[in-house]
């Protein structure tokens, strides 16, 4: 018991937070991530690794259901923090402190564990979380039963390659059906919802995919919640008649690019560069002057541009009219530098905010999960942007 208590305390000193951005949560997410970086906690990369679930903004009904699934699957000791859209740095700090105290609180964790042990665990039939899709996961266990392949069923045709006679369902799950794949074979199809709770993932995005192995055979895109006005805020204010300088808008825009860069670099498996991008983003949003930002940004930009491995991996990924992932990365880097260089431009803002990409599901079809993640991160798409 004493040992457990001691271990809980040690563990609570090094929590692994996982930050989820729900509707209207971008501002709170950025502040929360900055605070977590300041405390030098290691963020959990998948949600399953976390013991601290940080929810930013106000999740809608479906989003909340997804969060609940993740939370139910999170092994204890665990704590949940809700950061409302209007959270301030001090309130975030207090919320995190409370959560850490909760993590170290043996009695509270004990009660939590007892409450969970009391109710029988059952996998939700309709889940929308990242690694918590046992329904999807188990359907790789086969297509139909033997009989549907036998002679007696051969006459009724192949109906486009599908055999969906649900002959039995172990664990309450239907068996997977088959469908043609990109290599001319007919393999099991697995229906998996990718998102909305994933690290480095656009807020509220759900990709309903049909997987064969790790290749996406078909995809549909859904957004939980509408567009976010945070990144377009300066333009919205200017449109509403408030005086806004170009510097302010440029600062917001540069932070947006750095946020996207952080995601792309992180999905590329380059956590070091991603951390640099996010540190720069946090300093931009904390109103650091241009002199303090220009030199570190140049150094970051040089490092990213010089990585031949990154170019090799991003080349020909997600090609659309304006180029592939490499050209989008270069574009972000160039525009961020321009925005940082113009941080002292006090002329009033006009014009419209830069248009963010949208995600066409066809882009993902035929790629493996890794490519699909890179495509999405290199677009960093948003649903239709909400203008005030």
């Amino acid at each position, binding site marked *: 018991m004493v040992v457990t208590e001691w271990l809980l305390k040690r563990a609570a000193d090094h929590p692994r937070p996982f930050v989820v951005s729900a509707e209207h949560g971008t501002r709170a997410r950025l502040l929360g991530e900055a605070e977590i970086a300041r405390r030098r906690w290691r963020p959990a990369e998948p949600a399953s690794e976390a013991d601290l679930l940080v929810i930013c903004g106000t999740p809608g009904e479906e989003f909340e259901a997804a969060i609940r699934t993740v939370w139910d699957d999170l092994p204890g000791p665990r704590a949940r923090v809700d950061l409302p859209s209007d959270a301030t740095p001090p309130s975030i700090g207090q919320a995190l402190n409370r959560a850490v105290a909760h993590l170290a609180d043996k009695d509270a964790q004990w009660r939590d564990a007892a409450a969970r042990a009391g109710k029988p665990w059952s996998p939700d039939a309709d889940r929308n979380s990242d690694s918590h899709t046992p329904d999807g996961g188990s359907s790789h266990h086969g297509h139909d039963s033997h009989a549907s392949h036998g002679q007696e069923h051969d006459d009724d045709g192949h109906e486009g390659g599908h055999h969906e006679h649900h002959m039995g369902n*172990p664990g309450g799950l239907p068996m997977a059906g088959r469908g043609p794949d990109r290599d001319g074979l007919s393999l099991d199809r697995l229906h998996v919802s990718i998102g909305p709770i994933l690290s480095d993932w656009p807020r509220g995005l759900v990709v309903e995919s049909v997987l064969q192995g790790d290749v996406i055979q078909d995809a549909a895109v859904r957004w939980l919640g509408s567009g976010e006005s945070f990144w377009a805020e300066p333009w919205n204010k200017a449109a509403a008649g408030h005086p806004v300088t170009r510097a302010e808008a440029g600062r917001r825009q540069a932070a947006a690019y750095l946020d996207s860069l952080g995601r792309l670099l992180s999905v590329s498996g380059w956590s070091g560069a991603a951390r640099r991008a996010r540190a720069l983003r946090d300093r931009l949003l904390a109103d650091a002057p241009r002199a303090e930002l220009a030199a570190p940004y140049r150094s970051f930009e040089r490092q990213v541009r010089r990585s031949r491995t990154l170019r090799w991996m991003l080349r020909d990924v997600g090609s659309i009219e304006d180029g592939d992932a490499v050209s989008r990365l270069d574009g972000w880097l160039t525009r961020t530098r321009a925005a940082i260089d113009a941080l002292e431009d006090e002329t009033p803002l006009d014009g419209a905010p830069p248009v963010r990409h949208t995600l066409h599901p066809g882009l993902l079809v035929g790629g493996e999960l890794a490519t699909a993640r890179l495509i999405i991160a290199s677009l960093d798409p948003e649903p239709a942007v909400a203008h005030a």
Partner: protein
Amino acid sequence: MAVAFWILAVVSVAAGIVVFVVDSMARATFALLASLLAVGAAFLLIDLEYLGVLIILMMVMEMLIMAVFMIMYMMNPAGLMPMKMVHNNRGAVIISGAVFVLLTAGIFLTSWPQRRGEPPADPTRELGMAIMGSKMLVMMVIGVAILATMISTVVLATHRGRYDRYGEDLKRRRPLDPGPGQGPGLPAAEHHHGHGSCGSPDPREESG
């Protein structure tokens, strides 16, 4: 030594039987692997260190590849729906039982010749010398067989050739492999994903 051998022998045969008993194909694959590994370990007991370790090395790789194909092609690879997929079970039991009895009888009735010589200090060196010397021909035949297998398996298993990858005049700089926006290798009639406007054009259009 003898104890170790009998343990390994029992493990090996038991794992071999388990292969055809369990429902889960994954368990069957790894039971087979256990059987093979036990044989590899038994080889370590009779001074065949190199071959024993080689069996371990190769069989792990082989079984993993087998596991991938198993998931691809088997229905019900996890055995969640127990089913018997056998034909002529009785006949198979009788035949294999008879073969075992015959072999056992042969083993114990044959008067085996006396052992000639002692194992050399380094059997691995002996093996190396043999395949590079007196048994060179065997190894060369095997080499050709491996090459032939590699070529024929690729021909059998893939339906895309270099003309699909590099264009009809083989002039494309980077190969066109199946992937997002690059037109899957299926005839156009078989897939309706409803995405016309994304990425590089269909290979067929480009090469035409």
